[in-house]
């Protein structure tokens, strides 16, 4: 094997030396420094290490000279790296030459998920009105999810709640209403709570459907509670959420666990009830926002509360639907993609 040319070796070493200053100038932090150190000195792949491998190929006569060249380079690199390390520890001083018009440091912070922001907004309105907050399990039994809420077995009303089952008895709760039962079993009236949480339906995801979504349930049980209170409280809540001038509409509906039942519509904020071709309200001028009603006497009986002594009202609202309507969000799936470009917008709300 021919001995490598000493002169070429010197040129190669000088070339490395020439690049050294630029390489050091480009280092900004400890990680960069470490990377540079590895690039030169790594025990396996460092340039210097590889050059030492080359050294072995020199003939005995040239070896000392080549070795000296290489050791000089190595020392120089080590010194430069040490100096660099020191300088990295010294904060950059804002001397007179600094351009003050350069942008300020861009600080970042994390943002709450939009669903939590809406959920908290709803919670705080009800908390101000004296409501407590409760929660309950997401895996429920048929009894709490359906039967106690006055859905008899084999009743077609169950078809309106497409259910994900685990077995004959266990299912993913289709609404937050089972928590009503759990609370009423444990606490004597007066009860005044809201129940935010995840609920599940057997839905194939599309722009307006999700197999999991958030609901906020509300329940008031006391003596002398009337439908007028239901109306007053929900009207106030919706005005707080959407604005003082908001028009609301209560219309009859059906839920097995309330009687009488009411669906609550709010005026379409997209068209201001003016566009017969509005895509948001379908030209009706109204948007369905929540379901509600007076607690069904059978539900009270199921939890041993005397419906002659007590009355109550309840409501349930879909958080995503409400947020989508409020902000013109076209697709419910955006909430679960967790695209930070989407979620981070809402902390500015």
């Amino acid at each position, binding site marked *: 094997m021919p001995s490598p040319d000493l002169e070429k070796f010197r040129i190669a070493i000088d070339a490395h030396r020439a690049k050294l200053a630029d390489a050091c100038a480009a280092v*900004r*932090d400890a*990680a*960069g420094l470490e990377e540079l*150190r590895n690039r030169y000195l790594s025990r396996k792949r460092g340039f210097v290490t590889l050059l030492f491998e080359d050294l072995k190929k020199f003939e005995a006569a040239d070896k000392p000279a080549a070795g000296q060249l290489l050791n000089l380079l190595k020392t120089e690199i*080590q010194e430069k790296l*040490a100096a660099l390390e020191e300088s990295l520890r010294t904060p*950059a001083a804002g001397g007179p030459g600094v351009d003050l018009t350069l*942008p300020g*440091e*861009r600080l*970042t*912070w*994390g*943002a709450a*998920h939009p669903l939590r922001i809406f959920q908290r907004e709803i919670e705080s309105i009800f908390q101000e*009105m*004296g409501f*407590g907050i409760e929660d309950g*399990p*997401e*895996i429920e039994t048929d009894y709490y999810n359906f039967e106690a809420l006055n859905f008899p*077995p084999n009743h*077609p*009303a169950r078809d*309106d709640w497409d259910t*994900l*089952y*685990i*077995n004959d008895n266990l299912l*993913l709760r289709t609404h937050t209403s089972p928590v009503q039962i759990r609370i009423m079993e444990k606490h004597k009236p*007066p009860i*005044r709570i809201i129940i935010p949480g*995840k609920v599940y339906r057997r839905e*194939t*995801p599309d722009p307006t459907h*999700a197999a*999991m979504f958030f609901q906020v349930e509300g329940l008031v049980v006391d003596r*002398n509670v*009337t*439908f*007028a*209170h239901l*109306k*007053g*409280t929900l009207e106030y809540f919706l005005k707080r959420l959407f604005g003082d001038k908001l028009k609301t*509409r*209560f*219309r*009859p*509906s*059906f839920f097995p666990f309330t*009687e*009488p*039942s009411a669906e609550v519509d709010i005026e379409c904020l997209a068209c201001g009830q003016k566009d017969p071709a509005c895509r948001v309200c379908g030209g009706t001028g109204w948007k369905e926002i929540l379901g509600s009603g007076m607690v069904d006497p059978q539900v009270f009986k199921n939890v041993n509360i005397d419906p002659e002594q007590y009355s109550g009202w309840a409501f349930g609202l879909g958080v995503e639907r409400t947020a989508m309507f409020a902000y013109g969000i076209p697709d419910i799936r955006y*909430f*679960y*993609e*967790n695209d*930070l470009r989407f979620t981070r917008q809402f902390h500015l709300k």
Partner: protein
Amino acid sequence: MKISLNWLREYVDIEMPRNELLDRLTMIGLICEKWTETPDGDTVFDIETYANRPDTLGHLGIAREISAMTGFPLKERIHPVVELPIPTSEIVEVQVLDEDLCPRYTGFVVKGVKIGPSPENLRKKIEAMGLKPINNVVDASNAVLFATGQPIHMFDLEKVAGPRVVVRRAKKGEALRTLDGKNAALGPDMLVIADEKRPVAVAGVIGGEESGITEATRDVFIESAVFDPASIRRTRKALEIQTDACYRFERGADIGFAPEAAAMAASLLCSFGGRVSKGLVDIYPKPRKAKELVLRSLRTADLLGVAVPDAFIEKTLVALGFSVKPSAQGSWRVLVPSFRVDIEREADLIEEIARFFGYDRIPAVVASLGILDPVASDRLQIGRLSQQFFHFGFDEVVNASFADPDKETVLGTGRRPVTLRNPFSVHAAILRTTLLGGLLVNLRHNQNHGTEAVHIFEIGEVFSWADESRHVEELTLGLLSAGPLGLPQWSRPPAAANFHHLKGSLESALGALRYAMLVYEPAEHPSFEEGSALAVLYKGERIGIMGRVRDAICETYGAAGPAFAVEIALGVLLEKKAGTFAYEPSPKVPAVVRDLSFFVARDVSYQDIKSAVERAAVKFLESFDVIDRYAGPNNPPGQTSLSMRFVYRNPQATLLAEEADKSEQKILKTLKAAFKIELRKGGGA
């Protein structure tokens, strides 16, 4: 439910513009968001109906609501027929063997029907319902269903052996080829209509093909019956069939109306040349009494929050078909008509009154409420925790609770997943046993959409089977960190995500909840690279794990590493008692700060050093921390250089240098004895 305006007008006069009609229907709970206008001037509404109101599943029922709403009376209904001199029972023998599933069965025979296309009026009705006209007999049976909500079935009498009509449970092994061309396997819990030999229809669900009406049919047996709703529902679910008939039967047919529906069908067939047998077959062994309820005026006002005038209450209920008799002072005895299967309690009557009184006329009252219930402390703790993570630059995410079983296996949580019996997708067939999968999906999504810095956390439930019969839902905290920590700056570039940043974020955030310090020990886990993971312990109990996610797992999720992640059993932690908050006065005397720099063998962990110092209970030592670490080639082989800062203070008096010296010496002695540390040149002391 499709409702034709022209058809409605056969039952009640409607004299108002369409929009007014729709608005007023909405306010009694019949909402219609879609309608179409037909070329011949009819309007077909698509009205939403409720599971408890089968009476609104026909034009007559909707007309009844409109009549109560407007005050226009329902028109008289007549069903003229041409009668044969032969009694029905002489032509066909009808028997109900299982009356529990068939409380009422009625029928007529119509002979000599000329099958052909329906007359125009009937065709239009069928088309308005979105169906294609078939022939006059089939169309007539559909017309009765959509007119009245009562399903009718028509048999070709010549195909009914006997002719005998037997209503019974199916026998084991019986089968029937149904009108939709499928073979239905019948079971003993299903009710059938059979002839002398075999089933000819699945009762209330679907007819048999063989006994169905064809172009050759001449004599027809009309069935108008009522079947047990739960049985119908079970049968149609087992057979996976949905028909207009079973949709109505499972919601509850009007037991009082079956004879009129039969008469109506017979009348239609007579208009096609048929002649009807004499006398209705009506098997109704236990005639039902009308339900009687008590309605109190005061209770109505108490529930609605408004006093509805007694006269209005009486008028509304009568218009809806109830019979109302004043009883004791301020109350009525109300008889419920058979078509209102939904009315069972006083509250149901009050809803009827409210519907027609108008929800908009009930006042809106905000009650004055008592004191605020305290918020559960878990929620406050979770709120504080989240706030900490926001400060540290972590974004909150919310993922669905479902997981892809194939991918979840890779994460190796060792938990037995809860499997869904009827998932909406095979990729969402189990409930998540860890938050990590969702966080990695989020990482991929954001990387694919140009976001490199992904520092996210989620607080949510994970699910598993604790044993054969007990499932658990565990509130869990998960964090994932990948990419640069912060935005590019001209002044200094951001660091990259790393283990200790994540660890620090976790410690600081949990510290804000006032829990005792976490302890760590090296751990191996399928989700994390070998040697990169630490188990997280709280007072000796393992509550989580953190480390660098295996590159291969990132790849499985389509994400690019390095990614660092942690998962903590937050629910377990929140059950522990957090320290109480107590104010401490700020020290009035200065501290003495001393740094020590030393070499220590690489296999000595900081946690070892920390514990040793803590155990030494050094006098005046207030706090200490690592302030620098170097593991480069300038060190002696196998050694790491550590610089630690110690803060000494005597709360009572200014600490003397000699006192600090003594404390420092004790630390040095401890560390030398335990770890053979060597002070670096200029390393202090």
